[in-house]
């Protein structure tokens, strides 16, 4: 009976045999690819993977039977997908570090692009870093309080038409493409209100993109705060708003902070809204409320679109700066999450 043999296999493929199979696959792939007149490493790796998949299936089929062979194949596919997903991550980070370090120096971090042509080898992103910090900072000042309060409303009220409306809108806003957020701020702030392009207009667009993340994570974390804590404080005669501020929020603080930092990291890399709201600017503009202002993502986009190598080098250095900033924020979020007191 098949079931019994599967439960108590008399013969099984040993780990050593699978290692041997791996070696055979590599050799077969090398032979095949070289034989076809190519020396591409990527192709060899792909062929090795396919060869291993097929050989492992055949071997396990012969020794343990069909069900075990199918099982082995899906195990291999699951491992394969994970390794495949790592390829772009490793490639992007390696290339950004390698190409970015060419121009990632003191000059780059302390100078703007004022008077620098695409051919010039100097010039930096100081103005863009400054712009990004101001734009993201202002966006956080708008989105964090608004998002926190809206989430508190949803969780602490729990019913009513506005609660379901806020829930629905949060879902819809999560899916708003960043370019649409930028277009909206352009039509609203620049065209309808006539305030002109500025760093603050970019902040408004970034705030729209941050809001749903802040509301959603706050909502989830506040939901994890046990009701017994609320009951205890109310029983002591504390008013509801004090209960929320002194008991519920502190209990949920680290979870909420993690969500907020991740939201900040996400909008720091947003390029599309900047192009429609702050445009781009080669000189330092430290006033986010007046005039065009560069941002680090729009700096990278503009430099990457130039054919000159000097400009492309600047784009890579900008990408490295941006990546470091975003990864740092993610690291901070993870460290805060470690200290989370609430577990679901």
């Amino acid at each position: 009976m098949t079931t019994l043999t599967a439960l108590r296999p008399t013969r099984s493929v040993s780990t050593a045999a699978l290692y041997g199979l791996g070696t055979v696959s590599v050799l077969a792939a090398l032979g095949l690819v070289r034989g076809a007149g190519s020396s591409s490493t990527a192709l060899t790796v792909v062929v090795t993977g396919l060869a291993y998949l097929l050989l492992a299936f055949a071997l396990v089929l012969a020794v343990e039977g069909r069900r075990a062979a199918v099982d082995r194949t899906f195990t291999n596919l699951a491992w394969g997908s994970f390794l495949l997903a790592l390829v772009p991550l490793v490639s992007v980070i390696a290339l950004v570090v390698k190409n970015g370090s060419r121009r990632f120096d003191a000059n780059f971090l302390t100078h703007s692009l004022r008077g620098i042509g695409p051919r010039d080898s100097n010039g930096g992103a100081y103005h863009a870093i400054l712009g990004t910090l101001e734009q993201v900072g202002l966006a956080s000042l708008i989105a964090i309080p608004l998002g926190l309060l809206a989430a508190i409303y949803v969780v602490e009220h729990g019913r009513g038409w506005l609660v379901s409306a806020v829930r629905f809108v949060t879902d819809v806003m999560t899916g708003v493409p960043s370019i649409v957020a930028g277009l909206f701020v352009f039509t609203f702030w620049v065209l309808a209100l006539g305030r002109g392009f500025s760093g603050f207009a970019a902040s408004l667009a970034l705030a729209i993109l941050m809001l749903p993340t802040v509301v959603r994570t706050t909502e989830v974390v506040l939901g994890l705060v046990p009701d017994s804590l609320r009951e205890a404080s109310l029983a002591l005669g504390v008013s509801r708003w004090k209960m929320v501020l002194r008991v519920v929020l502190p209990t949920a603080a680290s979870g909420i902070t993690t969500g907020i930092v991740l939201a900040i990291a996400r909008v720091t890399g947003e390029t599309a809204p900047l192009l429609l709201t702050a445009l781009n600017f080669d000189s330092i503009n430290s006033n986010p409320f007046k005039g065009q202002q560069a941002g680090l993502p729009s700096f990278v986009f503009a430099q990457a679109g130039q054919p000159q190598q000097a400009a492309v080098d600047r784009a890579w250095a900008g990408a490295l700066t941006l990546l470091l900033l975003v990864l740092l924020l993610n690291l901070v979020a993870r460290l805060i999450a470690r200290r989370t007191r609430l577990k679901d």
Partner: protein
Amino acid sequence: MTTPVADPTVAPSSALSGGSTGRGDRVFFALTGASGIALVLTIVAIGAFLVVQAVPALRDDTTSFLTTKAFLPEADRPTFGIAVLVSGTVITSLIAMVLAVPVALGVAIFVTQYAPRRLAGLLGGIVDLLAAVPSVVYGLWGIAYLDRHLQSVNSGLNSALGWFPLFGDTGGRYGRSVLLASLVLAIMVLPIIAALSREVLLQVSPSLREAALALGATRWEAIRTAVLPPSWPGITSAIMLGLGRALGETIAVALVLGTSSQITTKILGSGGNTIAANIAQKFSEYAQGGRGALIATGLVLFVITFAVNALARLIVVRSARRRLG
């Protein structure tokens, strides 16, 4: 607006009522309610302002907005349409989904079912890092690195599978291809689909899987019969959300795709454009009229992504209702 916002009698949390009902409470909950209203108004305003600004441009359009291929809103007789842009958006996103979905599901299954327990969190975090990389960085990587390597793949695909319409001859030019844009999009949506699916798979009670294993199922049989069936609605919704992200992605496509004003179905070469990338590329060079046309296309994108996301939400809500009976 006379909402129950400031009314402390309907202020209780999920199950609580009572507590003191002083002025502080009224002010505090009025403030939270106002934030909720601000959120709702924002989404209404997005739709309204886009419509208001798109209408004049659409009125000036001398041809049919839906079927015209050309995009010349600044001409003396403005002629522009979304035929090329919508088809380009849909083609790149669909190919991206075909490439990303199997791998993303494989990653989610690997992290939740195959990876050693202690490493699961760490491995999930590594895939999340993929989502943290800004789109402009992917775009830069795409033109400066991936394009070069994909060209030989494209030419190989053409010579091996050229009979297949999508892999048709592109005149020997394989750079900045539709496939490159799709591949970059696929890499960008992969971590989103993987992370959302992972959450869904973790919701399945481990006892289901253990029961299947105890009945003599192999590891894969347990996953196929016990873990995946209750997860499908959630996974479908994760895929829809990924699709929504792919449709709206701007900068990476704007950097890597070689554009043209023709609808192209030959994905090994350049051609076509997407709504979002077109807006990013043209915005700074256009004046009032052209920007109006871009806003009209942005409105179309907003409607498409809205529909896709609403559908994703609907799937989750309906399956939750079915589970409750």
